[in-house]
């Protein structure tokens, strides 16, 4: 899916939360969104998913304004935070619901979940446990799983590695890499973990104070460059 942000401005009072004159995600592209706390990453993703209204500008998916045409929702898998979960459902109930929103039958849902067994072993998990009774890490796994198992054309994940145990982080990286191999699937992954995000994403967009400061192809030097950027930013914000 091709995603464009055009002249997006979002303000909270006098404070500019996001100011993106133009940003483009091509079909099949995978982008990592990085930035400090309050840089505007979540605002960026919320506007992208039409969960927040921009003061100016528009978001287009395959040329269609997301506010006017909701067809993108049937092709997008996203997980930003726990508000994406229905906490009083059990894991199977929730995943069945998500599957239904993508037109999947129970059998198809079960089949599509199988490849994710190593990430979240549904066969070994307490099926009667409500999502609200899960640990933060397991709840996050369910949210990520719900965004991915439906094989969407566009994936949006906010901080997918945070709160996951190391084995799950490794598995998730593998899953994302596998999914990114599909040339028709675009992905945007926001993360504070520079190591993970540079490993998974061939392109990095760096936000600071609501503005895109860097937009670079990932190379061997990217991690070093980002580390250096954030060290300098840390020093300047401390002084």
């Amino acid at each position, binding site marked *: 899916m091709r995603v464009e942000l055009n002249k997006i401005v979002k303000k909270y009072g006098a404070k500019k939360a996001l100011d993106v004159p133009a940003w483009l995600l091509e079909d099949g592209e995978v982008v990592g969104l990085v930035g400090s706390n309050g840089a505007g990453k979540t605002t960026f993703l919320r506007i992208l998913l039409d*969960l927040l209204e921009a003061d100016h500008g528009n978001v287009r998916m395959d040329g269609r304004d997301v506010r006017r045409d909701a067809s993108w*929702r049937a092709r997008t898998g996203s997980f930003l935070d726990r508000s*994406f*979960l229905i*906490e009083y459902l*059990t894991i199977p*109930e929730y995943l069945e619901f998500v599957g*239904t929103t*993508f037109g999947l039958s129970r059998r198809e849902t079960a089949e599509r979940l199988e490849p994710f067994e190593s990430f979240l072993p549904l066969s070994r998990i307490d099926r*009667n446990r409500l999502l609200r009774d899960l640990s933060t890490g397991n709840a996050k796994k369910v949210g990520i799983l719900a965004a991915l198992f439906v094989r969407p054309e566009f994936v949006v994940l906010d901080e997918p590695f945070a709160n996951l145990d190391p084995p799950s982080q490794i598995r998730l990286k593998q899953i994302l890499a596998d999914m990114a191999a599909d040339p028709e699937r675009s992905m945007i992954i926001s993360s504070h973990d520079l190591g993970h995000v540079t490993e998974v994403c061939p392109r990095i967009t760096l936000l600071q104070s609501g503005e895109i400061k860097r937009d670079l192809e990932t190379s061997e030097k990217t991690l070093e460059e980002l580390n250096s950027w954030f060290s300098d930013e840390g020093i300047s914000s401390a002084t």
Partner: protein
Amino acid sequence: MLPPQRTYPLLARNQVRISLRRMKTRQGWFMRVVMGVMLAYSAFILLTLGFFFDRFSITLWPDVPPVDVVNRSLLAAFISLFFIRFLFQKTPRMKIVPYLHLPIPHHRLVTFFQAASLLSIHNFYPLLFFVPFWMRFVVAEGSVEGHFMWIGAIFLLIVASHFANLLLRGVLKQRAGLFYIWMSLFIATAFVDEAAGIGLQQSLSDFLFSRILSGEPTGLILLLAFSAFVVAASTFSLARSLRNPDGGQTATPARVRSFDIPEEWGLLGQLVRIELLLMWRNRRPRHYLFVSLLFSTLYLVFMLSSGQAFGSVAFSALLGLFASGGFALNYGQLMFGWDSTHYPAMVSRNVGFHTMVSAKLIVLQLSCLALFVTSLPLFIWLRPDLVALHFAFLFYNAGITSVLVMELATRNRQRVDIGRSGGFFNYEGFSARHWLWFIPTALPPVLFLQVMHNAPRVGLTVLATIGLVSLVFTSLWTRYFAGGLNARKHAMLEGFAGRAG
């Protein structure tokens, strides 16, 4: 560790601050005014009833002295109050949790919060009746010791009832449903006792409190022993629960019951299922469900059996409105507010507003049918003359009330915590609009039937027809609401996230 003389003032100051802040943040000025007026009015009613009870009792029981009337009703009154407590009163356990990591001995926390829990409207309001009644009527009878023993017994009953509730809630935790069933059976038995003229409970109450008033100490000693037992037991239960501050919820989550729906029902079926699970698995929505069921069963029995006391057309219309529409009127107002914590889960997915509204309307309309069926036998048994009214309001509630309530629900932008208790004065999610909305929802059918009181059959037929026509056009309503939701989507998301109201 802090010494006791510093611990208790510190805790008291903090609790006062928390209460004041909660009042300011959770309720707007309109709600505060409405609540203030309601509290003042009900206090006035109780005081008046206490001081001038003879004027009321003489019309209903002309040959029985006021003290005897009260004595024989005391047990029933306290049992009813206990039931209300169970529905609405909160336990202090959650208030203690934030202090557990501080250098304050747990037994002091328990002592403070147990004592502070007594500052409850459930304990204060009954006294507004009993104290003036005691001053005016009880002190005019029997010995001085008897007077003080009688009012002492009332205080003990309030204390015992208070701590028995805390104890019971602590013990039952996730098994509230079982308690409701037992309590309903108990009330049903009490009703049979009353309706069949046996009067066992009245005789027992009269015997106990007449003896106390005459200065006989046995009854008071028994009450004292019972009160001491429940205070000690609830304190022990609270102290023990602090060893597991999360209430064991993480370790042993609640038993979950689920149900499947036919796959052919698709997304609409899934959404209806999710609505039903929401109201069953979350405290506050479940509270509305139980209250509606109680109204359409137990309360309705008392209302319908009151006969001529509530014989007016307006009252009958209100009864019809609530008997089948009670759930829609109460629960339906927050139909979208209930989703506030997971609204992004809905609107970021391929769930059209049209399907979302359809599912919610189906639930509201089916609730009217379910409550109609539940209360129909009571109408047939106690007031067969109102069965036609009950039928007419089934269609009116399903067709019109549900739609009016949905109109309000689609404009809701306030976050609701579905896990919190639905106790008295928990109006989270409600605004002035919700209170004012009752006027256009309830008044038209009541006024219409009042106007048509000379031709009630015609009036009811018109009401039912309006409801039926509206039901036929449900798809139009659905489209209208879906359009409104789409237009207000971002404002609702912001409000539900607590960023705007």
